[in-house]
């Protein structure tokens, strides 16, 4: 059963370092990030998009063959 959106969003700052750690080894899609942090993809979507909004990560221009974007940290794009 889906959790309340307010509850998921509250965890964004808690999840941020885990997601950044997952992205340290390279760009990932939302399902890949979800798998890396062991949380459902729909919840990871909230955290990834919140982090995108506040500049912690951004998407690569090219999407994957199965229709996903990959996300990376600003440090990732600089390297």
């Amino acid at each position, binding site marked *: *059963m*889906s*959790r*309340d*959106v*307010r*509850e998921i*969003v*509250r*965890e*964004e*700052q*808690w999840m*941020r*370092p885990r997601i950044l750690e997952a992205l340290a080894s390279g760009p990932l*899609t*939302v*399902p890949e990030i*979800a798998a890396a942090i062991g949380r459902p*993809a*729909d919840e990871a*979507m*909230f955290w*990834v*998009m*919140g982090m*995108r*909004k*506040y*500049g912690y990560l*951004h*998407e690569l221009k090219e*999407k994957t063959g*199965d*229709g*996903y*974007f990959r996300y990376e940290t600003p440090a990732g794009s600089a390297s």
Partner: protein
Amino acid sequence: MDYDALVVGSGIGGMESALKLGDMGYRVLLIEKEASVGGKMVLLSKVFPTLDCASCISTPKMAAAVHHPNIEVLTYSEVEGIARDGDGGFRARVRQKPRFVDESLCTGCRDCESVCSVAVPDEFNDAMVSRRAAYIAFPQAVPQKALIERAGTSPCSFDCPAGIRAHGYVALIRSGEYEKAFQLVLETTPLVGSLGRACYAFCESACTRGDLEGSLPIRRLKRFVADRHYAAETPPAIEIPARNGKKVAVVGSGPAGLTAAWQLARRGYQVKILEAASEPGGMLRLTIPGYRLPVEVVEQDIANVTALGVEIETGTRVESPEALMQQGYDAVLLATGTPLSSSLGIPGESLNGALDALSFLRDMRLGEAPNLHGKRVAVIGGGDVAIDCVRTARRLGAKEATVAYRRGREEMPAHRHEVRDAEQEGARLELLVAPVEVLGDESGAVTGLRCIRMTLGEPDASGRRRPEPKPGSEFELGCDVVIAAVGMSADTASFAAQLQLNGDKTIAVDPQTMQTATPSVFAAGDVVSGPSDMASAVGRGRRAAAMIDRWLQGNELDGAGFDDGLAAVSKTEVLARQKTYARLEPAEPGVLLSAAPTDFAELEPPLSEEEARASAVRCLDCGVCSECQECVSACPADAIDLDMRGRELDVEVGAIVVSTGFKLFPADLKPQYGYGKFKNVITATQMERLLAPTRPYNTVLRPGDGRMPERIAYVMCTGSRDQTVGNPLCSKFCCMYSIKQNQLIMGVLPLAELTVHYIDVRAVGKGYDEFYAQASAMGADFVKGRVAEIRETDEGNLILRYEDVENGGAVAEAEYDLVVLAVGVQPNREILKLFPGGELAFDDFDYVDEVDEDLNPARTSIPGVYVAGSASGAKDIPESILHAGAAAAQAAAHLEAMRVSS
């Protein structure tokens, strides 16, 4: 008359009416409940059928309304009620909510937002992404000013007697900002480590999460940040403020004295603490046993004070505050606590082995404890000090340690967990007994305690049932040591000649200012209140410091505010914000108790970092803003003002335009469509945001997994033309916005397949039918027939079961990646409260009734009150603008009629 016209609501209709009236020369007050003018239109992607950018059309009107010389705009404000006056005009009460940001200073830089510690769903993006408690509504908001969402003070912070912003440091820990969390507590008191261990945690009793699976371990979180700070090899240096040339003497170095000294030193005072004991710390060092509060922690906390240049002189007993003044101090604070134990008042108290609780505990802390090995110890009393004594006695080797209390377990003032832990450590409770005499042998040594059984009668002044002796029930309790823990009192005899004392020997002060009858002498802590607790003493020390500062700066003390925060937010309101709550397990207490403890090692283990953050994330952000002060620190314009309060204003106006718009149908009221349950079922308003330039995602993606959808279905008339949800009305523009979205999606996702499940398409308007045909020609597939239900596959796809009218009425199923519910509109019932007198008429569906719609559009049942836009029924944007123009013309005619007749 304050204004010619009041316009309620600043959507496209309200702005249009206000601008038209303003252009005609009328003075207009435009009220908007949100933080920005613009209503719903500015959040749309594009408008139909021209596909012009909605923001591009809206924002010039928004700016024009806000900057119009004849229009005053109050955003984040609500009209609470309107009544007619006797002259054809109206009186309106407007409540302007506090933004907690000074609009005249805010530059819209969003620095506050970037550091805010609280994330909440962004209602301006239909909850598809987060925003912060400190925020600017959306990128095109007018005014482009931040605000801080505050529902009240969080109960944990509100109930802290010390005034510590508990929610603030919890939120900072959740964000991983441990040192900032420490510094936030340090702003209130230097006793971060001590409170993190030995506070009785009023915050946790108030925690809303306690109404779910258990409160947060807020006290232990404080200990967590204190431990990290003190363990750092090079903790951040404490900034020493410039001295202001004034000197304050603080008498006593307990929680109140240390906190006051810290607060005064931070304000630039030269502070000296005078302590009668040989070591500083008061009850922290000399009363609380080490298993609850190690002395090293007390010393670390005290070092915060001395780091500011505060001098501590121990072994100095002050008997005359006046003498201190003569030594050159500008003010004196007496914070000497309650160092005297009350006596039992029974024979035998002078026998060898009859002790008082404070001396016993003090001797233990100073390494001078009596040898209790193999002895039987009886502690008289039922408070926390009695429990400290009995647990200490067990650690000192007592073979029997008994608490004798005259009331029952329920009436014991000691904290329940302390009593429970004492019993687990082998202490015994002898309840409903009172001491009659301490018995001794010929050598003068204690041999026992004569007691009498008690029974509970009616409640006394304390609310507890009064103990009454049972005649003939006396008995002897065998013991070698008797410890009296029946109360504590202030040691103020030497002050009696100079200060006014209360009957219980406490110092009489003004409770607001902490000032004694001698203006330069203040008093705080237990010497004023009588025995209390560490957090309460800290709070009084803070208050005293603030008042001493005011007094020494030559300011009036009468009416001086202190800790005047917002009222506590109600737990009911907090819990109503979510429909469901996942169970988030509280951290394990982890206290390892021994039935025969042998040392004073600390019992409670620290939280690990993982435990701390997992605990902090359970916080419900009751007050929304956590008061972490990060925005205050970050704002380059000093625009944050957490002391800002709302205001109410009464205005007289000649005419009113009601332009309060509509509400959207809550899609979860059609459970067969799975909104809120299936991750890839969204509403058309959410799709508007996904298509808008300021969208929450980087493009149109599935909320369930971030994949670009290839097959998208629209379900028309969700919540409109539907008797099952009580709304038989057509929402008028859903067909067109769905067609518009189809065209836009085909632009964003050229390969996507789009299917629209509809009843019939209503394309009534200039260019609308052509727009519909264009979408069809572009490839959108229109399927006539209702959708019966939606199911979700394991992959998050959606299977629609629908009726296909044009193919023989067969029931069919199709699978999609994403389903969009074209939700209908409902009346905005909030306007029912605008006219408490009930004169404003509504139609059968609660839209504002236009009493002469054919010949006098916008006219309502009240002369002088007009309706603009969708408040009187669903209208698209061009219709709303036309209608708003009519309302403005009607209002102008009314105003002219008033002018002519006056």
